[in-house]
């Protein structure tokens, strides 16, 4: 008969091996010796003081208090907690971004005070065909990048959730304020957008 496997030897010394396989140990010197060795070392290991000394009765409450203090600043849920904790504030954040963008637009569209041609030549640095991005003050570039990134990520649903909606009169006013070139460009953009959406 086949020798006992290591799991079977463990079952044998624990008394859980089935009777047919256990009977093999009586007939096999090799398996009997292996089982005896295991029993000896188990006896030796279990003969040591395996009782964990009981700590002071105050220790348990002290341990609980230490854990309580340590978790006081923690949050449950591992790495994903922050992903969910900001969601309730998303509409407010979206509203803030929109307000900042609208304010910035209003400020940029405010009619400039009249200047003389000479003054304009001295202050204007934008040449035709010049990259507008290059004209942004380096001190404000970081703020501008944050705003544009936030606007790019802004979902329409978030804007609606924030109670923001666009009024048609505002669009009319904006279109009326465009120059002829700007109107042409708007028309071109609308046509290309319509073509793209119909495909």
């Amino acid at each position, binding site marked *: 008969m086949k020798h006992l496997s290591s799991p079977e030897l463990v079952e044998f010394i624990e008394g859980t091996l089935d009777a047919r396989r256990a009977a093999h140990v009586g007939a096999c010197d090799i398996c009997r010796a292996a089982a005896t060795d295991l029993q000896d*070392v188990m006896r030796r*290991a279990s*003969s040591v*003081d395996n009782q*964990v*000394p009981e700590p002071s009765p105050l220790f348990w409450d002290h341990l609980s208090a230490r*854990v309580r203090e*340590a978790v006081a600043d923690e949050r*449950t849920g591992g790495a994903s907690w922050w992903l969910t904790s900001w969601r309730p504030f998303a509409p407010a954040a979206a509203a803030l971004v929109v307000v900042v963008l609208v304010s910035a637009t209003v400020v940029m569209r405010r009619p400039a005070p009249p200047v003389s041609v000479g003054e304009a030549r001295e202050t204007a640095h934008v040449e035709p065909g010049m990259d507008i991005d290059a004209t942004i003050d380096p001190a404000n570039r970081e703020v501008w990048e944050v705003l544009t990134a936030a606007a790019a990520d802004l979902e329409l649903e978030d804007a609606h959730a924030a109670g923001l909606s666009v009024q048609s009169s505002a669009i009319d006013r904006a279109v009326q304020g465009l120059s002829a070139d700007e109107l042409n460009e708007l028309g071109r953009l609308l046509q290309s957008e319509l073509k793209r959406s119909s495909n």
Partner: protein
Amino acid sequence: MPTRAWEWTVRAEPGCKVTVTNPTDAELVAAVLAGHRDAFDGIVERHRRHVYQLCYRFVGNHEDASDLAQDVFIRAFKSLRTYKGDAALGTWLYRIAVNVSLNKVSAKSVRPEPLDALLRTHDLRAASGAESASEAVLRHERAGQVRAAIARLPKKQRATLILRMYHELPHEQIAGILGSSVGAVKANFFHALNNLKKLLS
């Protein structure tokens, strides 16, 4: 363990308080995840003794076992959302305790309890006439040899031996803690005993 009640407010119904007397582990976990941090006290209170004792088996002294037990509960709190309830909470905590302890022990050799601390325990035995001081010293030396030999076993064999021999957990639960099959646990136990024999001879 004495019966204890935890009380918390139901978030969906403000003003509605729920008192749970002697809640199950699952109820405590659900309460913690719902934001009732004090419910975690219940989990600590219920499992701290077993967790501490398991840590003690790995490091062999109160100071390190105490630190490890604290670390186990902090890690459990941080990752409570990953606990799916497919195993008993105790088994899940044991799994964390084994990982934390094995990492600690591998980084730092086992530092057994000083003899005087054990002799304080012995004083109680001696007072009851159980053994003499020389017997206590001999027992301490033998225990130290066995603990040192166990500490030299490969990690999985060491964990299996401690959980099986000293915590008397069934093979099935050990398999759940170590994330292996019952057959593998028995084979590990066999190899642990064989290696222990070589280390002690």
